[in-house]
């Protein structure tokens, strides 16, 4: 009895060990795949154009700072200008999107009013309509009223962000008891002040997560900006990167190209390095609950 048991348990142990090894191997391969492109990018951005034209090598090129200098000072691409433009658009839309989504969610969550249900249903319904569907009319209007190359035209539409609204609404439901609002009313606070001084601080975690997500999606956005921003000094980073693609590669400094790419993704990667935990948490809490 005991002997049989111990041999069985040894077998089970060995089985589990093999399963574990396989699992780690599986995860390892996928992690390596994700890191591969990033590592390659870093490596390639350290090489001079001649090194890149020459034989393949995994050695550090040693021209990282030189490439950085060249890329940063490249007048035809003007990446610093692009990063400033991108930052203005991304930061402003992140602020506007989160603030107004939270405000809308609060308005619908806290108050009883006639069209409450209808309005909520409506916002849920428009949530999935792709942005491209309004693009034609949007572009046409922008050209008609001479609003191309206006960065604010990329920022203000962020006031109506159904997906962020939905996230905020769910968050409010889990953290804000109505008594808190009533307590503030009795304390003498005005409705607007209650939102700014009581509700918004309570929503800080949700606001932070959504600010990051809206910043990233705005920073990475290519479709609309590429159609609206035609002047070189108004271009955002994704447009500049996409334009590299049509350059003539026989004459182009490839080291610089890799450096441009690195610069384009670096800000988001730095934010991610610091806040990855809360970002990953935010991926699920908004979209689907268990």
């Amino acid at each position, binding site marked *: 009895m005991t002997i049989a048991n111990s041999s069985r348990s040894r077998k089970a142990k060995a089985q589990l060990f093999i399963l574990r090894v396989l699992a780690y191997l599986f995860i390892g391969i996928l992690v390596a795949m994700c890191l591969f492109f990033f590592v390659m990018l870093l490596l390639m951005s350290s090489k001079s154009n001649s090194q890149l034209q020459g034989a393949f090598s995994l050695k550090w090129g040693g021209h990282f700072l030189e490439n950085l200098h060249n890329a940063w000072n490249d007048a035809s691409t003007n990446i610093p200008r692009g990063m400033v433009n991108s930052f203005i658009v991304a930061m402003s839309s992140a602020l506007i999107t989160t603030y107004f989504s939270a405000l809308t969610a609060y308005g619908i969550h806290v108050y*009883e009013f006639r069209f409450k*249900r209808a309005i909520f249903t409506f916002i849920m319904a428009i949530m999935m309509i792709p942005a491209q569907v309004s693009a034609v009319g949007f572009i046409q209007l922008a050209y008609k009223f001479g609003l191309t190359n206006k960065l604010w035209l990329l920022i203000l539409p962020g006031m109506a962000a159904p997906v962020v609204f939905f996230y905020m609404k769910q968050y409010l439901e889990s953290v804000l*008891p109505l*008594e*808190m609002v*009533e*307590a*503030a*009313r*009795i*304390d*003498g*606070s*005005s409705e607007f*002040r209650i939102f700014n001084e*009581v509700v918004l*601080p*309570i929503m*800080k975690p949700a606001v932070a997560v959504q600010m990051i997500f809206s910043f990233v999606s705005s920073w990475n956005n290519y479709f609309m900006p590429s159609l609206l921003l035609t002047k070189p000094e108004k271009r955002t980073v994704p447009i500049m990167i996409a334009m590299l693609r049509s350059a003539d590669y026989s004459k182009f400094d490839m080291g610089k190209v890799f450096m441009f790419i690195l610069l384009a993704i670096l800000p988001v990667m730095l934010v991610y390095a610091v806040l990855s935990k809360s970002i990953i948490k935010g991926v699920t809490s908004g979209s689907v609950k268990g």
Partner: protein
Amino acid sequence: MSEVKLVNIKKVYPVIERNKNKKNVNGHRTGNLQITDEGVVAVQEFSLDIADKEFIVLVGPSGCGKSTTLRMVAGLEEITSGELYIDGEYMNDVAPKDRDIAMVFQNYALYPHMTVYQNMAYSLKIQKASREEIDRKVREAAEILDITDYLDRKPKELSGGQRQRVAIGRAIVRHPKALLMDEPLSNLDAKLRNQMRAEIIKLRERINTTFIYVTHDQTEAMTLGDRIVVMKDGYIQQIATPQEVFDHPSNLFVAGFIGTPQMNFFDAELKLRDGDYWVDVEGASVRLADEKQERLKANHVEEQAVTLGVRPEHLLLADKGIAGKVTVSELMGSSRHLHLTVHGKDVIIIVPSTGGSGNYIGSEVALSFDGSNAHVFSKATEKNLEY
């Protein structure tokens, strides 16, 4: 520090969704509430004069409309009809912040991102009080509630009892005209609840203001209130001092709701013999006390079948009387609760615990009661015939 007057107050929750109304309206259970064309009537015919510095307790089972009434006084709910006056001022349409009232919520509703000090200072800050005044008032209130040591902590670092104190502190810090409390102790465990109840009695001596207190707990109602308002299904059942409610409950519901264990009820006959009222119950016959005789006579009550109510502590073991059989015996310490079966009905009596083993179970006993402790209720209206 003011009078609060409610005149024929009514609250109707419009039924928003036709198919869902049965279950839930704004989180209130609709139970036996009246549903009219306008919606669910949560409170009606509510009239009450609250004197300056009076401690009024609204008590009743959940869904009776007591919280709704309090919230209408606070201005958190619209008053459907009727009038509300504070210090003679018509208040129906005044925003809560302009009513100069304070409120303590069941779940405390402390602002989680502010320290205890900031929580208490918030209302003063909004009133644009000077920093010195805020500091003085917050510290004064903190002193009264013994929370000075926690002023720099956030609510989540506090225990339930401490949060409760902060919630009260936030309410008293600005010396409101009336202090409204909505089930303030029901989130605490039994021991803390007893302690805080005593604290509230002490608090009342220190801050002189009008209290309106909502609870479902009759012990809190009896111990705290100058007068208590018993409510059921949106209607007031009785407004009286705790003693009066206990001694002369206005109807069957109040009689059963106030007092533990619950009052025992028997089917009985009210008889007139030689101009005196007697109750005949289960073979026993008891003459009502003189005080009750007068009240019944004043109402010209006729002979009739009644529901007789006698509190467990007023039913005595006797040689003869109502016959019953003991089924359960619970030792409560200084007393003993005996559960009896009388004619197939459950009856509870309280007897002194004599120290002996007291093996009562299975024994046949007889019960009697004094005519001053008998309550007679009309079978038809369930009203106390004394009224």
